[in-house]
């Protein structure tokens, strides 16, 4: 199940959910909020999502992973809202009979989620400015409104 939450992610709960006696390998990924981005000091960030479409697309990604690596059990939770440095933004948990599938499926899920799921990140910097991340192709100059 792909989930979106505005609370702290319980990564251990995801691990327990995919755990199964016929699985010999477990791989997980956590995306942490770090304190720098492109040379700038980050003090926090805010994730927002198009919830309905994000849940749909995220669910598709997980189903694709389980189809590509039969036997793998995959879960992913993404957090939205205001996050502080060190918070977990996203957690992917994969259990499978053997380790090859677990590594591959985990990599696939985080890469696809980043690319296809409608979630946005606004970063806040030590100098008081902010920027929408991932928008390298975006033009600058729009009015910014702080929420």
């Amino acid at each position, binding site marked *: 199940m792909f989930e979106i939450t505005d609370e702290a992610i319980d990564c251990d709960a995801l691990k327990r959910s995919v755990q199964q006696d016929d699985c010999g390998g477990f791989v997980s990924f956590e995306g942490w909020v770090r304190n720098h981005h492109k040379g700038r000091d980050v003090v926090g960030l805010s994730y927002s999502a198009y919830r309905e479409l994000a849940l749909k697309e995220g669910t598709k990604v997980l189903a694709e992973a389980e189809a590509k690596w039969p036997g793998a059990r995959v879960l992913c939770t993404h957090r939205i809202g205001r996050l502080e440095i060190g918070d977990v933004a996203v957690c992917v948990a994969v259990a499978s009979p053997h380790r090859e599938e677990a590594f591959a499926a985990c990599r696939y899920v985080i890469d696809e989620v980043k690319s296809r*799921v409608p979630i946005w990140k606004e970063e806040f910097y030590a100098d008081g400015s902010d920027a*929408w991340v991932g928008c390298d192709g975006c033009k600058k100059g729009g009015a910014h409104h702080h929420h």
Partner: protein
Amino acid sequence: MSAAPKVVGLMLAGGKSRRMGEDKAAMVFRDGQTQLEMIESLLSDVGVESFLSVRADQDAAGRLDDTIVRDAFGDVGPLGALASAQAMRPDVAWLVVACDLPMLSKQAVEQLLADRTPSADATFFSSRFDGRPEPLCAIWEPSSAAAVRATVDAKKLCARHLLEDGSLDVVALTPDDPTALDNANTPEEADAIRKQMAGEPRQVIVRYFGVLGAEAGMPSESLATSAASVGELFAELKAARSLVQDAAIIRAAVNDEFVDWAAGFDDGADIAFMPPFAGG
């Protein structure tokens, strides 16, 4: 191997149009033609001879008897109409077309004819709303007649169920022109389709995500637009709201589905504009 059976059109005009309140076959949507005239002309354009399906006692508007298929199964609906046609001409493949498809295009019918699989029992389009069979514009081969007749005799009247229950060998096509099969059963649906055709204003909700929300100064708004596609709508709003981003890096969605810029939308649509994603 014998040649594929000839395709002959069956225009369904025997419905009572209860919800519409007026005869759907006689309604005019475009070019000054009634629905019946539009479909007949379309079938003629693609080289398909057409028959009119009517109820047992319905006035057939002066048509010659040999161009009519009168319902012989108690006026139970489209499957009965089809069974009547197949009984009359068991040698042909019947291209059944409902009279309440105002957006039906020559392109849609040509695709159906081109991708028809005569060795199957039926070829149809999948609905753009739920992916299920769309029986309102479909080709039923002679080999489907026994199953159709059995279904009607058993008083099971849903053509869609028959096409998906596994008793027939079927071919489902994805329509190149998905809105061609939108049907109008009620006055409200007819109005919405007319507005879309005339480019008349539709009331929609627009959601601005990521940096677009900051540029627009709001996360969403309700507005009226005559735009025929989400691409046109974005261009309108880019100007009206002074949005900085170019369509080239924006993605659109309508009613929680990703769409491309050419996609249209109905009254009441929920439209989203999304800059590049930055999750994870």
